[in-house]
């Protein structure tokens, strides 16, 4: 049985503080705040409004979340997973009932001084409950699909509730992270093939449930000539922004596509386009390299974690980051349909930033305690 105290301030822990992840996190947030500033900068008045400062405030809250996440031994997450998951379910149902509507979907709960978007922390809930479920040894033969009815039952309500909002982006993230974990947890490849087959077969049904605008986006992606005056226009403008940055970019505050409001959601989902226009291929390559380093570092952590539970926690969290980056950049660069997925720690959005920093905290937690027995 475990012998550690719940909150253990051990000098060894402090010396093992994971500076790599912490500094990477700071770097992403810095790039984010800078780009949010630029995206909202008004040439006439010479300032950028309240959003950059608000993002910094959220960063402060994120730091608290991060330190809470790394302060206690991660094995206690085993006990917290279901309560946390339950809370997310309640919040998502609340959003449906009393949620605040913005941009056509009902995603926020108004808490007076700020608005909470529960779909962001619900991504974490999936990782917590999955790590808990898969922590025990996998059967030698691997998992069959029929063994995994509990995980499917856990993920389904979250996906359905986010689809209702509608928030296709979060639903896709929940799905990809879920599949990543069950694969990592030991799903047989043959069973995975069945799952993919079933998924493809149910696509027409899923199609039926999509909103008109979501269908339009997907159709527009498959056939860019379909709606060149609507959704297709945004994709074109986003590509023009990225492309016109060329190798070295137009310089900070010198993006023009961004300035003239041609980009949709320029400080949230399309922030990469703003960044690319101003910093060019050079800047993009560095930003992507930082993500690459972080993800690779975390994979290393998966290999070196003390136990299966810790390894799965880190794997789940880093899967969130990986899918966000891949989907966001691919969408903004015009190689994927437009779905609302933010760029981790860079896009504007408090709930997303705080959740992501909590995820970083969990990974740092596992990292710090791999030496402690």
């Amino acid at each position: 049985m475990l012998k550690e105290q719940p909150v253990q301030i051990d000098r060894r822990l402090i010396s093992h503080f994971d500076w790599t992840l912490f500094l990477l996190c700071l770097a992403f947030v810095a790039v984010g705040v800078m780009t949010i500033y630029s995206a909202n900068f008004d040439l006439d008045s010479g300032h950028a409004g309240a959003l950059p400062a608000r993002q910094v405030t959220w960063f402060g809250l994120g730091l608290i979340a991060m330190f809470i996440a790394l302060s206690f031994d991660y094995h206690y997450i085993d006990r917290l997973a279901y309560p946390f998951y339950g809370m997310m379910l309640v919040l998502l149902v609340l959003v449906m009932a009393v949620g605040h509507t913005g941009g056509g979907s009902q995603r926020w709960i108004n808490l007076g001084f700020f608005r909470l978007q529960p779909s962001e922390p619900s991504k974490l809930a999936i990782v917590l409950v999955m790590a808990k479920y898969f922590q025990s040894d996998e059967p030698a033969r691997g998992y069959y699909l029929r063994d995994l009815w509990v995980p499917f039952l856990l993920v389904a309500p979250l996906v359905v509730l986010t689809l209702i909002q509608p928030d296709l982006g979060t639903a896709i993230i929940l799905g990809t992270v879920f599949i990543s974990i069950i694969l990592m947890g030991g799903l047989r490849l043959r069973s995975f093939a069945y799952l993919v087959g079933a998924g493809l077969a149910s696509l027409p049904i899923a199609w039926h449930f999509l909103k008109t605008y979501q269908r339009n986006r997907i159709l527009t992606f498959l056939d860019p000539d379909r709606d060149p005056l609507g959704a297709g226009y945004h994709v074109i403008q986003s590509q023009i922004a990225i492309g016109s940055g060329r190798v070295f970019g137009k310089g900070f505050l010198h993006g023009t596509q961004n300035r003239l409001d041609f980009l949709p959601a320029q400080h949230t989902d399309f922030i990469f386009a703003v960044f690319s226009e101003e910093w060019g291929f050079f800047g993009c390559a560095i930003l992507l390299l930082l993500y690459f380093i972080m993800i690779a570092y975390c994979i290393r952590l998966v290999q070196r974690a003390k136990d299966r539970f810790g390894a799965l926690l880190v794997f789940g969290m880093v899967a969130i980051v990986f899918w966000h980056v891949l989907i966001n950049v691919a969408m903004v660069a015009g190689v994927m349909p437009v779905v609302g997925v933010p760029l981790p720690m860079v896009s504007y959005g408090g709930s997303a930033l705080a959740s992501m920093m909590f995820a970083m905290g969990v990974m740092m937690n596992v990292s710090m305690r791999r030496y402690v027995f």
Partner: protein
Amino acid sequence: MATLAEINKQDGAPELRWRARLLYVILALSFLGLISRLVFLQVISGERYTFLSENNRVRIKRVAGTRGMIFDRQGQLMVDSRPSFDLIFVPEDASEPQETLRLLARYLKRDENELFKIFEEGKGRAAFDEMVLGRDVDWSAVVAVETHQLELPGISLRARPRRSYADGPMAAHILGYLGEINQRQLKILRDQGYAVGDEIGQYGLERRWEELLRGQSGGQQVEVDALGRRVRVLHEVTDVPGYTVHLTLDRELQATAYEALKGKEGTIVALDVGSGAILALASTPAFDPNIFARGVKSEEWSGLITDQLRPLSNRATQGQYPPGSTFKIIMAIAGLEEGVVQPEAYIQDPGFFPFGNRQFRDWKKGGHGAVNLHRAIVESCDTYFYQLGPKLGIDRIAKWARAFGLGEKTGIALDDERAGTIPDTEWKRKRFHQPWFPGETVSVAIGQGYVTVTPLQLANMMAAVANGGKLYRPYLVSKVESLDGATVREYGPELIRTIELKADTINRVHKALADVVNGPGGTGGAARSPAVLVAGKTGTAQVVEMKGGYLKSEHLSYFNRDHAWFVSYAPVEKPQVAIAVLVEHGGHGGEAAAPMAKKVYEKFIEMQKPATETKQEVRAEGATRAN
């Protein structure tokens, strides 16, 4: 938790370690993919995208779909769309906008300050949005702009279909008009492809049938040069024209009705007795929907909405008036059907009816003498119906009035139809929290008091009286077609209910109504026509209650004068058309309204030329009597 201890002993998870090695490969491949895309966009195509980003080279030019045409029942064109040009200015494309405008003003011979004003007002718009300097500009302006294109950077012309109403105000209240989409509508309709600046039906059929008439907007994604001129079309979506709508309305009959009403405030509704199809529906004063098509000027708009005579109101469906003596038709039917009336029994009319401590006066000083039901309808004897009122009681009166569709919307496909009021004890209790007083029934018996109806309701009631009790829902659109002539939707008669009536009731009412127009002493003699045998009932709706002695309507101030009614059907032998006429403040129904109905009936008969034998049958009978 036993497993946890075991896990701890395992020192990590070996199978996960093996799988993690695969993750490096997936990670590397994914990022390689992203980087390649960025190399393609930023390094290989960078130059082209830079070019496109300068001055926002890629723009969207929307083209609204051509709206569907509207035809009358004979296939005559009533509403069409014609090509027109708007004058457009994009200041960002002009190095010196003021100079461009000054030059433009000179070429167009327009006041430059007028253009500057539009320019200043448009300052708040998003960059590269178009400003409209003039809508539907004339041909000389088009030529001037085309010729001097190079000297006028930022100025362009936009072709746009413009709505055209062939007959101006004639059928304005039915056809309706278009207007620019407002913020509230845009919020709801954005998903359906509407955008700022689009036109949308705001009134009448244009509004109610918007979805089918509208078509789909198209447009072009174009690349423009530094002066805002189109270089090439990158993508194009062709617009889809709207559907063609065929009306039940007859344009010639409509014109006759409108002409008859001209100069008065009132309405004429003509219905097909056997189906409820609307043949004519005119309301005056009217407005010219063409002024909305070219963009209504603010002073025109405020003129329309502040006009005391309310030209925007469709009096046939939105005007609620006391039915006056036309309500006696309902009273007679109710009395006969409920067995309260002995049709051949005579009562004495001294010219008034005492009830409680009040005296209800007959319109005819000194009274009608001995009257039975027939004579009471023909001469419109008030006293006869005064005494019938309390015998029936308000609830039975209301029951029969409602059976004929009074007090409820007819459900015609026009917006903001009113229901009128048919009072009963229940209504009074809900509305005023008071019991019904028997004296009020006496007023209701001659269509005064709380009773109000719309002219369309009375026309529909007459159709049901004429056809023996079938109440149809009035309708305006018979067919919707696509451009290639394929039928999209089709509409026919819709029976609301069949009112069970005794043959004797129908015969007596039909006979009496025919004698109102054609018999001696009838109040509707002014509708008597050598061309067609008309049956009907006159009515005079009091606007103000007259407390003093008899005061002739013409001695009252205009807005206090009585409304004149004439509700009718024809031909008597085989009813085809039912017509309700209302002339606001027209005085007596027999004098003001009946002649208008006659004109419309004669036009209807004339249009059915082959049927000349009817003409011989119906001979002029004696001199026309004034009622």
